[in-house]
């Protein structure tokens, strides 16, 4: 009768998620539209400090709707939601000229390109993941690589980096946020960050 090793979790690529229809749809259909959504919001909203809140508001509305019923077409749904939210904000704040939110249709039409074949997509995904890692601040990148690729525990990462576990925690959470911003927020055709 032997106990399994304590470090049983280490060293393995592993993905964990809790699954529901709405969550899967959101991750598979909505998140990939983030760069388009961000471009749309940025183009139509002056106050850059509010962009993140607007994006979140769009996501919340879209996700709430999906929990009731999955919209048939994600892209027009997301962009229409964004437009409505911007219009409401304009009405409330009387700041931004309302014609600023009019270019929705041109934006929506551009995005339904035929999908490239799988091998290309797989290569593209890897390249993009690598790029996302490269864009992380050095200490965050170090921690993320040790966690996600080498599968080390937080304690081991702390020991290797010569810092405390709280610091590792901070590097990892910063890394997670930056990864999401890059993987979803950056337009796919932008090769370099400004």
């Amino acid at each position, binding site marked *: 009768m*032997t106990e399994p090793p304590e470090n049983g979790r280490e060293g393995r690529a592993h993905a964990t998620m809790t699954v529901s229809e709405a969550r899967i749809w959101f991750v598979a259909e909505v998140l990939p539209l983030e760069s388009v959504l961000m471009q749309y919001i940025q183009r139509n909203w002056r106050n850059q400090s509010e962009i993140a809140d607007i994006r*979140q508001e769009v996501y919340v509305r879209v996700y709430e709707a999906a929990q009731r019923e999955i919209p048939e077409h994600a892209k027009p749904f997301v962009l229409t939601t964004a437009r409505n939210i911007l219009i409401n904000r304009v009405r409330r704040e009387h700041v931004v000229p309302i014609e600023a939110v009019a270019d929705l249709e041109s934006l929506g039409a551009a995005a339904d390109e035929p999908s490239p074949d799988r091998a290309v997509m797989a290569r593209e995904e890897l390249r993009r993941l690598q790029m996302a890692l490269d864009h992380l601040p050095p200490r965050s990148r170090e921690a993320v690589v040790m966690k996600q690729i080498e*599968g080390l525990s937080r304690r081991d990462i702390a020991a290797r980096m010569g810092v405390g576990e709280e610091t590792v925690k901070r590097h990892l959470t910063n890394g997670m*946020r930056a990864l999401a911003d890059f993987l979803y927020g950056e337009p796919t055709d932008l090769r370099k960050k400004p």
Partner: protein
Amino acid sequence: MSAAEHILPDASAAEQRAAEWLERRACDDWSETSAAELEAWLAQSPAHAVAFMRLEAAWNRTTRLAALQKPMRRASAKGEQSSRVPVLKIAAAVVVTAAVSVGGSLLALHQENQTFATTIGGREALSLVDGSKIELNTDTVLRMAEGSSQRKVWLDKGEAYFDIKHDAAHPFVVMVGNHRVTDLGTKFIVRQEGDRVEVKLLEGSARLDANDGAPSQTAVLTPGDVAIATANATSVTKRPVKELANDLGWRRGVLMFDHTTLAEAVAEFNRYSRQKIVIADPQIAKLEIGGTFPSDDVKLFGRATHIALGLHVEERGSTIVISQ
């Protein structure tokens, strides 16, 4: 200050909290309690849910880097961890005798003389008048003895969870193929596949011995023990009770995986669905996945493997094919 800002928490704060949850799940000992806490936080506000899903999805995508940079994937976690200790080599029958005491009365089953069957994907809970409970998992057939003084059921196929009230005078007997499981008051799972019988003990203690008329070899099962009996050998493996509890997700309609290989997860799902999943590339069979999935939605699981592991998922007629 817009109205929306009064309704929704600050986006950046929600995202920071979401990152902290995700970091905790990736790094800490993650228990069912932690998972419940996370679910409660997610349920508090859709803003929490979307922030978490977004970070989780990006984070999961990076596991792909690891999978591809390390082609030497480890063998199945479970296969590795469980050092099998063969305790018995028995020709045929097996008896499990548990030792927990609750004073009890003679059992008269609710439904006497009956067969209970579940279809693929089905589930059924039975309450016995003595307070015992039996829950049948997918594709299971269980028969009950009619009102004799003996408490006896036959698990003809499938899997069932038993939560049995002890009655020293009337031991509870589960017949499984050629094997015989006798329980005296504990919680356990019995699963039959072909001639393989698996008994997992969750609470109490149990005795396992040969039942060829003259029991000769005995092992005491304690919580966490998993006994596997085939036609010619029996072994006992120790697993954390928490892990065994994960195997009971089906009682509430979910399958719970933790560092489970894709091959194992698919085999589990295929028990619950007529539409079967096929893994086309052997290389991906050992990729690992974790999480909580509705057991009745095999397509959703397929899409989850696409999102979490970047695999290609395609529906071909009555099968779902997963490939690199």
